């Protein structure tokens, strides 16, 4: 009985989640005439697959994709590496002022993005980084608070005896970190990786501010710019939006358990 109610609730919810995507997908396959037709049709007739080809032909979509990928991959590498290092320092090393740093990390987590917009713009301007991909990558190479907390938590959970058991008494801290602790933290690393990838992939504000040349656009900014490109042809922009979702969807399907487990452990463990 309770299960039945649950099934109904959860299924209804899942439909609410997915039907809009189907509707948008349907929109992306319509001709303009059908796109604005009232009442709308569910199944486009004819199905205009060419919308996708047209987006690809008429926009530097491949370039946007490449930019988004370069940024996301470098952000992932940077954030996973540096957050693990800092998390390790906080959890397993004799770092002076460890408590203070921990508190400050908590504080920076509360720091709203809005307050950083203007000063960071000036910082990157003075570095000559405007209209490059760097402002979207570099911050991830300085560790993120959420990553630090996740990694610290993970490293705290690794029993002490591992170090001794590994017989690496003479090893330097980097080797201990790299050979013993990091491999044990793989699930957390994967979690941090997928979350960083998603965050970077989805970003709209920063790329809007920092990227001005179309050849530097990321997918979201590129798709947004198409609004003016295909005036009155929203079915094409919808197709472009659907196309920009695809890579993220692939990553999500491949790494789904890390998203879910990650959310769970990041949110709750400890």
């Amino acid at each position, binding site marked *: 009985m309770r299960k039945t109610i649950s099934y109904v609730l959860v299924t209804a919810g899942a439909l609410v989640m997915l039907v809009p995507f189907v509707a948008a997908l349907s929109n992306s396959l319509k001709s303009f005439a059908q796109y604005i037709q009232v009442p709308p049709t569910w199944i486009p007739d004819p199905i205009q697959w060419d919308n996708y080809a047209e987006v690809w032909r008429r926009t530097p979509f491949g370039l946007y994709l490449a930019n988004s990928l370069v940024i996301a991959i470098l952000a992932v590498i940077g954030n996973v590496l540096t957050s693990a290092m800092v998390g390790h320092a906080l959890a397993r090393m004799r770092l002076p002022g460890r408590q203070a740093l921990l508190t400050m990390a908590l504080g920076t987590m509360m720091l709203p993005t809005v307050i950083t917009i203007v000063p960071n713009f000036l910082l990157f301007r003075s570095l000559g980084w405007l209209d*490059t991909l760097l402002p979207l990558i570099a911050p991830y190479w300085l560790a993120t608070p959420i990553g630090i907390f996740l990694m610290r938590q993970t490293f705290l959970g690794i029993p002490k005896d591992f170090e001794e058991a590994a017989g690496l008494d003479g090893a330097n801290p980097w080797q201990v970190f790299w050979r013993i602790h990091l491999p044990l933290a793989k699930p957390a690393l994967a979690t941090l990786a997928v979350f960083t990838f998603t965050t970077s992939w989805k970003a709209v504000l920063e790329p809007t501010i920092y990227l*001005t040349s*179309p050849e530097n656009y990321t997918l979201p900014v590129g798709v947004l710019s198409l609004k003016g490109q295909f005036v009155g042809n929203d079915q094409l922009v919808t197709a472009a939006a659907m196309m920009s979702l695809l890579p993220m969807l692939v990553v999500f399907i491949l790494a789904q358990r890390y998203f879910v487990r990650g959310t769970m452990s990041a949110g709750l463990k400890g």
Partner: protein
Amino acid sequence: MRVRMLAAAAVAVLTVAGTAACGGSADDSGAVTLRLGFYAAAGDPADTTMRELVKEFTAANPSIKVQLEVAPYVKFFEKLRTQIAGGQAPQVWLSDGVLVQEFAARGALADLSDRVKTVNAADYSGIELNRDAKGRVYGFPQGAQTPVLFYNKKLFADAKVAEPTADWTYDDLAAAAKKLTTDTNGDGKPDTYGFRAYSPGFTESWWPIIKAFGGDIVTDDNRKVVVDSSQSKAALDWMLGAMGKDGFAPDYAFTEGLGKGVVHTLFATGRVAMSYGIYARTLPATSAGVDFGVAPLPKGPAGRGNVAIVNSWVVNKSASAAQADAAWKWITFFSGEGPQRKWAELGEAIPINKKVAAAALSADRHAFLDSLDAATDLGVNAVWSEYTEALAKRMGEALSGASPVDTALATGQKEAQEVIDRFYAGQPQ
């Protein structure tokens, strides 16, 4: 081992990302590199023509190298503003006419007053519309836009209504529009409306209507907002009547619901029989195969309320002397007869070269030229975007019925005035 690979890869990609950004500034042997920005959708006829003209220009001036920076309108200005903030704006760009003074006031533009003196002002339209309160000129006209009354000949013929004339008044417009409003499928809602009264683009909506009714938006060098008047109220009431009890115009919510880009297709798709439209609107109407005519704006109690926007070339203040010279060379090249004719073929803007304009616009399009001659500017000043946005919000409230017309006018005037005062209070007079 794997660390090193990782690090190497990271350094490699960072380097690529870094170098991708630079480049483009170095030049040798006295050649000038000019970054030239303009707005157009990629692949549009305007884009193609501009590229051809640039090619022609560089062929004639081999020492000038031009780098184009093109983006669709909204994106172009969004990015231009960040570029100005970042000190990275192009050396010469095409500015929406209403924004020239804004950029100038931020110290982003070179004063072109002296250069403009070298041309024969009588040959071009719109130079005076770019002059600021102190008599300085920061932009040179590229193309002009002014609203006139578009009408769909077929719909007029079908409804057996006489086509608009230059003598039309707002009452004539309303009477015709009522006859043109039809509900063919009998669902109680018109399928064709006589007139499109409201548009988020106020150049083709409440601005000229208020002026025609004897109201005004700003006066005193465009520093004093005077929109809160009984004349403005009469104008908005007329619009509300059109969308409400008279029912010959689609209402506010319907029009907003279409989205900004689609509003302009209302006329092109035959859903309204008449609409105010700037010259650029001839393009979608023509390409949709609509048989249409244009007439002067109807006469209100105080005239027609003609306004114009002169889109203009502007030169970056931080351009080097050589770049500024090259930029001016480009501007005079573009204003010349050959390029102007070529640009006129697009049918996107009224050519600013008067000789070309007279020849390029057929006799039945001369309403545009007459309107342009009679037009005033669109209230441009250093905070145009900000004050008109404040005002447009309140106008939207009035025209959607969300708040009473007098309240909206009063608050709109107050808020717009605050924006203007705040800016000019901090300026040396």
